[in-house]
């Protein structure tokens, strides 16, 4: 039996952590993820978890402590945002390179400078090549569900990689919505026990971890890491299928919304997908053939699946809530268009919109403007501008 409740995204993530009952949570406060360790420390104070909560003096130490804990054979979790994630940078690579399946709630917030506490994706997008699996969540339910699935994915012997579960700061982290929670026992059964092959606390087989790894072996280790990330795709699908059997909620690599007969499509992450769905419904009432694709799994990037899904559209707009400052579009756009080329899928016209930086509101009207531009491109076959910004004063 599922439990119906009303929780904010941060509460949902903290609740998932309570049910997961990890061995160590090490975290440092930063808006808008601060509530996660706050709620969690209440569970600790009330004896509702067996976890050792380590209130570290920085995010750098949060990730370092997670690495020490996970290497010791425990489950380790943390939560952070923006500059906190940036301060962890060095350790993100050490966690993935050491093949430690740590799980992190990343509550997306704009990266300084200038300092800004509101939502965009510049934090997690900067970490997209750090070797972490990245799952994005439209709402509190998806953030909760992704958290419950994260350990199963990361700890799979074919994967052994850390997992970052992203949701939009304030927009979903602080908004209270209905949610269906899973019973504690079901969560416990679903995630099972963590049984690493080698770990520091195994007295009968002491191990050394984190070597100086020269050109004689480093490349092979990185090649194995790359293979693990490829393997993750299949494992994510398997775990999602099991999760569907448990909850009835189905997750894939991305969600396709009214794409069957659509001629044009927007690709967008996280909460903006919710707004876009509303626009799709509205425009379809007026006979417009519009659709939406919302990537859930951004790392590993589902190259073949997403290019296949986009192949038949006449025009596609990729919306990025982060700029790459490369003079050539945002990160999601670059990945999607690169996927099209590498899979030799050259049908649709592609345009990019950078939107919502620093929490700038993106309205249904803005998304309608984009769909109308796509319809124009579909009709004329002409693209006036590939790289665009929406909602900014210029």
């Amino acid at each position: 039996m599922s439990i119906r409740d009303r929780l904010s995204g941060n509460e949902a993530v903290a609740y998932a952590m309570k049910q997961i009952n990890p061995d160590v949570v090490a975290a440092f406060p930063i808006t808008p993820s601060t509530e996660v360790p706050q709620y969690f420390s209440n569970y600790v104070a009330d004896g509702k978890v067996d976890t050792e909560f380590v209130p570290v003096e920085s995010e750098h130490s949060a990730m370092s402590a997670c690495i020490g804990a996970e290497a010791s054979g425990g489950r380790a979790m943390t939560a952070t945002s923006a500059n906190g994630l940036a301060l962890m940078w060095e350790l993100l690579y050490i966690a993935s390179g050491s093949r430690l399946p740590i799980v992190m709630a990343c509550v997306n917030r704009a990266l300084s400078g200038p300092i800004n506490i509101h939502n965009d994706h510049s934090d997690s997008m900067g970490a997209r090549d750090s070797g972490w699996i990245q799952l994005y969540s439209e709402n509190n339910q998806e953030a909760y569900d992704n958290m419950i699935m994260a350990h199963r994915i990361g700890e799979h012997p074919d994967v052994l990689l850390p997992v970052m579960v992203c949701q939009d700061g304030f927009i979903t982290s602080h908004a209270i919505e209905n949610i269906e929670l899973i019973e504690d026992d079901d969560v416990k059964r679903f995630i099972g026990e963590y049984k690493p092959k080698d770990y520091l606390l195994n007295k009968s087989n002491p191990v050394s971890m984190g070597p100086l790894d020269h050109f004689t072996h480093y490349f092979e280790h990185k090649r194995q890491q790359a293979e693990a990330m490829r393997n993750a795709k299949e494992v994510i699908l398997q775990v999602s299928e099991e999760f569907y059997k448990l909850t009835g909620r189905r997750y894939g690599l991305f969600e396709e919304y009214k794409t069957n007969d659509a001629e044009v499509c927007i690709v967008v992450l996280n909460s903006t997908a919710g707004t876009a769905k509303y626009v799709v419904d509205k425009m379809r009432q007026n006979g417009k053939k519009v659709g939406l694709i919302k990537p859930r799994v951004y790392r590993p990037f589902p190259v073949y699946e997403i290019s296949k899904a986009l192949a038949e559209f006449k025009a596609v707009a990729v919306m990025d809530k982060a700029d790459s400052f490369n003079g050539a579009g945002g990160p999601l756009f670059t990945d999607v268009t690169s996927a099209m080329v590498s899979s030799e899928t050259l049908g649709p016209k592609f345009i990019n919109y950078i939107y919502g930086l620093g929490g700038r509101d993106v309205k249904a009207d803005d998304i309608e403007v984009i769909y109308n531009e796509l319809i124009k491109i579909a009709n004329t076959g002409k693209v006036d501008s590939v790289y665009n910004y929406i909602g900014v004063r210029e």
Partner: protein
Amino acid sequence: MAYNLKEVAKKPERFTGGHRMCAGCGAPIVIRQVLRALKPEDHAVIASATGCLEVSTFLYPYTAWKDSFIHCAFENSAATIAGAEAAYTAMKRSGKIKQEGETKFIAFGGDGGTYDIGLQALSGAVERGHDFVYVCYDNGAYMNTGIQRSSATPMFAETTTSPVGKVSPGKQQWRKELTEIMVKHNIPYVAQSAATGNMKDLYEKAEKAIYTKGPAFLNVLAPCPRGWRYEATDCMIVNKLAIDTCFWPLYEVINGKYIINYKPKNKLPVVEFLKVQGRFRHLFKKENEDLLVKIQEEVDKRWEELLLQEELTSKREIDN
């Protein structure tokens, strides 16, 4: 039980030979003695900061560590060991770990990884009260990257980033007193030691640090033949001169009570310590005589402060 070198030397070796630390380096001597203080039945989880120690003892696929060992990064061996200790506490509590004996947690770092880039993580970990020992092997510069100055480098020492030039006689600042900074964290055990004589001082302090519940800090002098520029065979002589001149006093602070473990009957002038090292060679030029006086004054000042601290805390009760 009184210290007995013959008995202690029979304990199983936890840090094997065959590592790549330089001949004449003080660090591996320190590590070996510290680990010797572990009870044979106990297991250790050891973290090391990036530095000479790490890159010379654990080159994939070879390790010199017989206990469990983790290297994470330069500035975070205290935070990494804190995570390991937290996992141990949680997993013992929930019954996931059921092995005989205890597991002890020890973090190592050089002075660069401890006085400088790792100070925040160290301060945080001891303030939170994790049950571990942090051992700084202090060789007074960033030796692994090629002898750059750190906040532990003595005043006027020559390093590659505090070179002696036409207008500069080496490093321009006094060394940071990290041991005192750690004392002010009010943790149960802080000590300064060196690998001298029959290793009694270092062994006993390591034993106390490891088996004191809560955080403990050991600052141990670790001469570096490359950076200090002495002959590899002179390591122990340099160590001895550091303590006989009171440049590096041997003392411990147990729950706030200062105990000076060695007061030289004949306190040697600091030049005896300086003159055996190439990094201070320029100080012996005629025009630099006043710099030697300044160094002596600073050593005397710090020694007197230490004597005063011992006096001030002499009536304090400790149970150990």
